[in-house]
């Protein structure tokens, strides 16, 4: 009788320890995810993208959106990106406008991902390298390998803020997304004004939803 009780206790302890360990591991794993590993951030993003593609047929646009949103919010520094895209014009906007812009931009960014990554054909991401680049940034290079062997280069630039690494720029085949957006958005802002810019963003979001 006593032995059974002891075994139970030991099992209990073992289970507790294991659970604790798991929790600890997963906790530390998620900690390290957000602190010092640009590569992991990118890979986590890419895993989620693949997932979105794989479940694309089952999920609708909104489903994919909800799947990707938390990952993108965490891995991308949308505030910084918005600031860089508008450049000197950012300060000229009042807080409310800035807020509205970031919201719209966020919706568009996540929506764009949701719109692209919706069907799966045995693609996979392959990590190439990580290296330091000027201005305390980190470059993570990878490529998307398609079924037929064609590759698309995906490079990410990450920046550290308050200890957390986040993506500020994505380059597809070397073309800087930030550059494209800056050219386009600033030109509209300067020629037609802020309301037109917002309008353009909403239009684009709507277009993606329709597809």
């Amino acid at each position, binding site marked *: 009788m006593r032995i059974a009780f002891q075994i139970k206790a030991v099992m209990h302890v073992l289970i507790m320890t294991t659970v604790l360990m798991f929790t600890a591991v997963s906790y530390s794993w998620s900690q390290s995810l957000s602190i010092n590993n640009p590569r992991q951030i990118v890979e986590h993003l890419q895993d989620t993208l693949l997932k979105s593609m794989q479940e694309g047929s089952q999920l609708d646009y909104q489903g994919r959106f909800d799947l990707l949103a938390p990952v993108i919010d965490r891995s991308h520094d949308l505030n910084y990106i918005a600031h860089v895209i508008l450049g000197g014009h950012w300060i000229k906007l009042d807080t409310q406008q800035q807020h509205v812009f970031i919201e719209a931009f966020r919706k568009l960014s996540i929506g764009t991902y949701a719109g692209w990554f919706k069907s799966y054909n045995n693609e996979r991401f392959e990590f190439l390298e990580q290296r330091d680049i000027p201005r305390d*940034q980190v470059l993570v290079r990878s490529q998307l390998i398609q079924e037929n062997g064609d590759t698309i280069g995906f490079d990410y630039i990450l920046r550290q803020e308050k200890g957390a690494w986040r993506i500020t720029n994505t380059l597809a085949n070397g073309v*800087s997304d930030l550059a494209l957006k800056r050219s386009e958005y600033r030109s509209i802002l300067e020629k037609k004004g802020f309301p037109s810019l917002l309008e353009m963003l909403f239009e684009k979001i709507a277009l993606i939803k329709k597809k």
Partner: protein
Amino acid sequence: MEASKSHLYKAFARWTSASYRHAPWVLFLMLLIAAACTVYISRNLGMNTDTTDMLSEDLPFRAHIKHYNKIFPQDMNNLLLVLEAPTPEQAYVTADRLATLLKKDAINFYDVYPANIDPFFEKNGLLYKDIPELERITDRLATAQPLIARIAKDPSLQNFASVLSEAIGELRKGRNLDLTPVLNGMSTTVEAKLTDIPRVLSWEILFHGDPQKKKYRELIIVKPRLNYTQIFPAEQSILAIHAAAKDAGLMDNSPIRIRITGEAALADEELRSSINGMEYAGILTFLMVVIVLYCAMRAAGMVLAVLLCLTLGLILTATFATVAIGHLNVISIAFAVLYIGLGADFAIHFLLRYHEILETNLPVEKVTYKAGGEAGSALTACTIVNAIGFYAFIPTHYSGVAELGIISGTGMLISLLVTLTIGPALLRYLPKKSIKELTVKKSLGGVLESLLRWRKLTYSLTLLALFSTVVMLPKVRFDYNLFNMQDPTGQAIQTFRELISVVDNSPWHAIMVAKNRKEAERLTQQFRALPEVNKVVTIIDFVPTQQEEKIFLIEEMAAITGPITLSIWPPIKSKHTSAQQRNALNELSAALDQFIEKQPDHSASESVRTLKKSLIQLFTRLDTVSSNDGNILLDSLESDLLTMLPIALQHLRTSSEAVIFNEQDLPVSLSNRWHSQTGEYRIAIYPKEDINDNEKLRKFVRSIQQVAPQATGAPIISLEAGEAVVQAFIEAFSLSLVGILIALLLILRSVKYTLLVMIPLLLSSAFTGAFTVLLDVPFNFANIIALPLLLGIGIDSSLHMVHRSRNNDLISGTLMHSSTARAIFYSALTALVDFASLMFSSHQGTASMGILLTVGLTFTLICTLLILPTILKIPTQNNKTISHL
């Protein structure tokens, strides 16, 4: 009459006779002396080419520049290397290469400072731009990034053309891209390729979105080791620079050009041009002088006599110069010119007098005696007056002129002695017949005499001229600009003028030394407030403001452009056949056509059309040449379009690494030039206008001196030196005139005659001054030396005239027909051709001296031979009075 001859007369007369009698000994002795002196001179006479040294050290501006050069020695005697290239990348790389080569050469150079080329500026250069400019650059880069990312992966013509085709397609579909700079860049490069002046495309400029200028400049400031034992102190250094330039890739047919200027180069060039001028002028002068002398004497032997007297006199005077001073400077070297002008005068007077007396058929010894006595006393008066005139220059601040005064004054005495010693000796060996061709004599005398008849006309013309002169005299001016004196076609001077006219960063700026930072800041503020000042620079300005904001912008830029240089590095250029290249270009052409069709009024349409035209020209050329030539053409075009891309990208990458810095972080080579070890600060003050113009120079300098009297720098020195020189000359001339007046009074013992001698001199001076206004030939550092010479000849001529007419010892009836008149005429003519040849010198200073002397001498002639006799009321041949004996 005989009894009243003075002691002087007798002394000279005896001396001359003695020389005549002992001619062979005299000549032999003189030959020995001449030889000995020549040897002595060649061993001991030096040349001081330092022009600033010639003004007194007590002058305040000299103290200021001395102080400055001690603390900041970088500006003194430097060479400015100006490199120009069609693209900024080439200018930068070449300047860097050249500077590195020169730095290794410690034998020829103390210091090599490439102003903008330093890894520090490569890295932090963006911080010097203002914020709007940084934003603009970021925008440009954002637009260019997609294009460049793809071109940079494979910098081949084929890829470039196909990327561009795609981009144009996107543009046509309505995508917002700014392709204008790239399209224009390509057109220009293609078109340039088809002419003989190919032009490499500057990607750095494309990145910044500016239109590509014709040329980009880099400056290297070099401090050479000057070799003062050579005539051209900077020659060796300049040769070393050219050799290094070749090593750095600056061949003759390279599109990159190097020009050398700066203080040391300008000085060398000036010396070169003035010597060039002299050589040519020297030969011409000699010929002309011989011709004139022959006209005067009509006997080769006499001409030879004059020349021998001159030569000996020159040698002896040079010997005196060596003994008394030891060296010549650029001013006192003019003594040779002065000596020839005045020395010839002496010899001509004596010889012509001799022959005049010879015609009276007296025995030879008596002729010699008489000629010696008369010429001697006349010439003595001239000698004394001239000598006093020259010695009066000694007490001035302008040591260049003071030395000239000593040498020339003594030269006069030497000339007198030589003429009256050698002259008679030589005469012994010359044919004794009198000058034939009385017709010549008569004609000159006749002309002069006939002019005398129009007394009233002469008076009225003179008064008229005098009146207009008085009106013009206030306009006489002095040109302080040393550059105007140089040969304007010289490379150093042209380059320098170009650098000055680009008002930003002109090398001709004022400088002030502040004892500490506070004073530097205070003075900077005061200078900035002046309307004539464009900008003021101190070391403080090398640390840009708003660095934190700018760093953020640079971070943005780095994020936006991404790692363009790193996607694949080094880029692998794919090989293509010409057919493939041609295909790609055809596609591009088609894309352009489509664009023009669909979007005729787009903002980029003009660039598209221009590129289309250039491509058509290219295709035409490709169709007309052989296929081999076509290949070469396309490969060469590829190189023109794409060679600079890697460098521009590299530079972009480096400049994205900028960090915030302050004064202590500046490179040492820079900070030492602005902040001395002793803690003093250098302030550079740049003018707003082109201070090549004298009035603007004066305004600039004076307003700066109001704020800081100890300011220095080339413009200030130029003005102050000029004023010191003018002051010195005014002092010297005043002293001279007073001295001459006193001497004349003592010699002539009559106020009336003194005045008579002075009047033509004053008149001709006034007329000459007025003429400089008419001809717009201002006085300058060079031609102001002409004035003592004009003084000398002027005095000589009128003194001879007055002396002769007073003594009334007329042999041929009238003064105008006398040997004196002829002597005056020919001696002035000799001097005239002597100096007229200077007018053709390429050295503007020498040329203006020639003009001034020619004009001055002409007026002297007119005043002495026309106006003076009119005033003297000399009886003409037609109105012979009883006074004729």
